């Protein structure tokens, strides 16, 4: 009896599936093309080796010209000095604005600095 009940449920489900599948299959399938621009391969640059510690090192504290960095940079300098009194901090603000590149500044950091903090705050 149990066996008959099992088979009747099985055949019932099978028939329902057969009825539903064609309905699903009727819905057309499309291929949509990718709208995104084609990204180039990007050459990666490794990070500079880290310093063992910051004592007696020159750390540039750079303000890129976003307004709130005027408030943040002096406080960062104070906090860093408080944490590591022997650190030498050089503050620089970009001469024009955050919209313009200043290669001379980056050159100076590379030549004279041991590390740099670049602050972006709005």
């Amino acid at each position, binding site marked *: 009896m149990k066996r008959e009940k099992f088979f009747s449920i099985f055949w019932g489900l099978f028939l329902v599936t057969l009825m539903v599948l064609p309905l699903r299959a009727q*819905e*057309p*399938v*499309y*291929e*949509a*093309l*990718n*709208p*995104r*621009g*084609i*990204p*180039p*391969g*990007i*050459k*990666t*640059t*490794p*990070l500079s*080796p*880290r*310093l*063992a*510690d*910051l004592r007696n090192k020159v*750390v540039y504290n750079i303000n890129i*010209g*976003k*307004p*709130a*960095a005027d*408030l*943040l940079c002096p*406080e*960062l300098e*104070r*906090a*860093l000095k*408080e*944490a*590591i009194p022997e650190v030498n901090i050089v503050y620089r603000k970009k*001469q*024009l*604005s*955050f*919209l*313009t590149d200043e290669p001379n500044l980056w050159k100076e950091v590379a030549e004279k600095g041991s*590390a740099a*903090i670049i*602050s*972006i*705050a*709005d």
Partner: protein
Amino acid sequence: MDSAFTDIAQVAAEKEGMPFARRVIIPHEVQEENAKAKAKAAVREIIDALTRPLAEKEKEEGVIKLEEHARIAIRGTLSDIQEFFQKSRWTDGLPIIPPTEKNVREMLRGTSHSPDEIVVEKFLPEPWKVTVEKVAINGVMAGCKPEQMPILLAMVEALSKGPFGASARSTTSFTFMAVVNGPAAVRAGMNSGINALGPGNPANASVGRALTLFLTNLGGSWPGLNDTSSIGNPTKYSFAFAENEGRSPWDPFHVGQGFKKNESTVSVFVGGWYLNSPGWVTGKDVLYDICRELKYVPLPWGATVIFDPTTARLLSEAGFSKKDIQRFLWENTTMPAREFRKGWGYDVLVVPSIKGGIYGKKTWPESYLTASEDTLLKVYINPDAINILVVGGETYLHYEVWKMAFPTTVSVDKWN
């Protein structure tokens, strides 16, 4: 780094080839009363970022592909496609027309250029390559028709030539406006009359929408992720229209940009805020009203005054050419130096642009930096910084002042 820039900084770091650049995030927003506490809270993390030895991935050198780029994005039912595009952030939030092979092929009939031709080698903000087919795909999604295809290609070219890259993601909610001139506007079915800047015309709506999709999909600028517009701007959905050349008393805008009257062009402007639109005044009175409004356009590198044809004709009948109006507005839009210096962005953007130029444009004279507080300064750089357009349906003596500057005009005809 201020937390407002977390996502955009990651995208920028990847673009510059340093996806693992170390960052310390400081909760937005830094103010006088909290700067000290925020700096103190961050200093340990900063020291750690400067001294913790590099992990292997941070030492890696080579070429990375930011993503796999398959031509077919998805195979599925219409609702599968809608869902996939929405989840992928490839839309403006509204349903799209699926860019199927058939739809895109149809759109490509609108240009003689090959689908593989490169329109722009590096579209901004991301330096992604854009082909004719990519423009067509986004055009289909926006609901454009083949006759609008040359305008779309020209719009991509204009966006890549103008100083627009940084604006697309600014926290300030900048937006872009596209103005079509010449026979192409008529062929494309664009509206220059009643409600030209509003909804109702399929060509205006879809061409403007395509511009937004270009910034998203060709420029990699995702609203809410790396497009960090703080409040946003409703004109970001769609902002394109044609100039009402037939009813204007003056030469069309593109003639002033160096094109012939019978040429077709698209001009893309950047800016975003609409100031005022009173009516019922004519002649010099209307111009003085406009001067009052032009004064308060933030970052007055440029602005655009849109006249209804009726207002334009009354001014013309009063003897004003377009050049006369630009000069009048420039000469009479003045404010004391003290007020000029209190304007938004004065220290951060205006002063640097006087000292060294931003966007490569000549700006205000250096005397603006030293003028006494009471000296009356002309707010705009020169008469040409005030753009004049004639648009509208002559149902009202109307004008609108828009903060829309740096028009970049390119030929549509070359993309036919």
